[in-house]
Every structure is written in structure tokens, then in C-alpha cells.
């Protein structure tokens, strides 16, 4: 698709921002997202092509504003729901349940 991900040659994206001694993961949730993606991918839930296309289908503004591992999180939530392995209702219910347990 002619989506926002297809950035080769675009202008206006700004300077290349680098971090000295950048850690592999910036947050624990990124570690979990990484491992969940590899695990579900290796388990055969989806192909790499499906994962990429799920990311390509993100809202363009959200794609540009969000961090890399948020793209992976979006892809997993999208594909697992589309494939009927989870439902949106279950995800939202679990988020509410965990929020209540936490407070």
C-alpha cells in the first residue's frame, strides 16, 4: 500500500537523533513486547508479511508519533484479534481488571 511507512526519499522528517550508549530496550514493556512478538511469530500465529502489513495499516499520525515497539504492540493486538485468537472485548476487560488490581 502507498502508506506512511514508505518514507524513502521523503523530506522534512528532521534530524537523525542518536543516543549515546543506547540500551537495547528503554522500558520493561518493550522487552515484553519483543519477546511476545518473537514467541507468537515462531509459534506460527502470523507471517512476517502479515506483521508488516498490520503496522502499515496504523493511523499515519499515530505511526509517526509512536515508538518502534508500540508498532509491534499494535501489530500483535490487531492480528490476534483478526485471527480470532483474542477478542477486543477480552483485551479491554483484562486491561480494566489489571487497572483495578493495581489501584
Amino acid at each position: 500500500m502507498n502508506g506512511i511507512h514508505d518514507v524513502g526519499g521523503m523530506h522534512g522528517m528532521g534530524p537523525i537523533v542518536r543516543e549515546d550508549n543506547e540500551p537495547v530496550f528503554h522500558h520493561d514493556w518493550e522487552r515484553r513486547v519483543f519477546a511476545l512478538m518473537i514467541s507468537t511469530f515462531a509459534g506460527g500465529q502470523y507471517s512476517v508479511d502479515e506483521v508488516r502489513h498490520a503496522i502499515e495499516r496504523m493511523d499515519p499520525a499515530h505511526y509517526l508519533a509512536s515508538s518502534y515497539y508500540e508498532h509491534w504492540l499494535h501489530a500483535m493486538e490487531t492480528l490476534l484479534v483478526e485471527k480470532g485468537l483474542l477478542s477486543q472485548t477480552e483485551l479491554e476487560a483484562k486491561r480494566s481488571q489489571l487497572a483495578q488490581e493495581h489501584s
Partner: protein
Amino acid sequence: MAVLTPDMVPAAVATGGSARVNVEVTPRFKPGDRIVVRNINPAGHTRLPRYVRGKQGVIQHDHGVFVFPDTQAHGGGPKPQHVYSVRFAAHALWGSEVSSQDSVYIDLWDDYMDPA
């Protein structure tokens, strides 16, 4: 579909999963061929970036036969075909203002190209 268990991790990491397909497919191109990239604009998944569409390049190398993402992403199967390294002169992509020395190399599937 399986669950990846801890004992499976070392092999999964060390082996991965190549996208090569072990079938004989007649290549449409060979190194040295001049090609023009098809102006396709699929609404679904493709690995053909817009910046090379319609541009002329030269086949450098045949990588062999691989899964075709444009079909694989949508349940259309692997449609295995040759993937080539293709060289595009920078000024063919971006115009005469850029360096005449530089080039972009990109990997293109048979279905992305026609003879120039």
C-alpha cells in the same frame, strides 16, 4: 500453530526461518539486464517502495527464489519467484542535481519489473 517452549528457543534463534523456497522457477532476468520497475500501486502489502516505481535500473545479481510478500500477506500463498539485486543510479531516481557517482541497490521480485 505451536507454543514456543524454552527448550525450542536456541534452535529457533540459531536457525530462524528463511524466506527462500526450494523450487525451480525460471528467472525472467539475468545480471546485466536493463529493467524498468512496474508502476503498480497495490492497496495491500508490497515491498516495492514508491521511489523506484517507473524507474530504470540494471540487474546486478540473482539471489534465488523467495516467497512473494504481496500474496503471502493476504493468504494468497507464497507465489515463489526470483529476487534480484538491482542498481539504480542516484540521478535516475532523484534527478540531475544529485551526485552522478552514487547509486541505490534494492532487491526486487520478478513481478515488480519489466524489460526496459
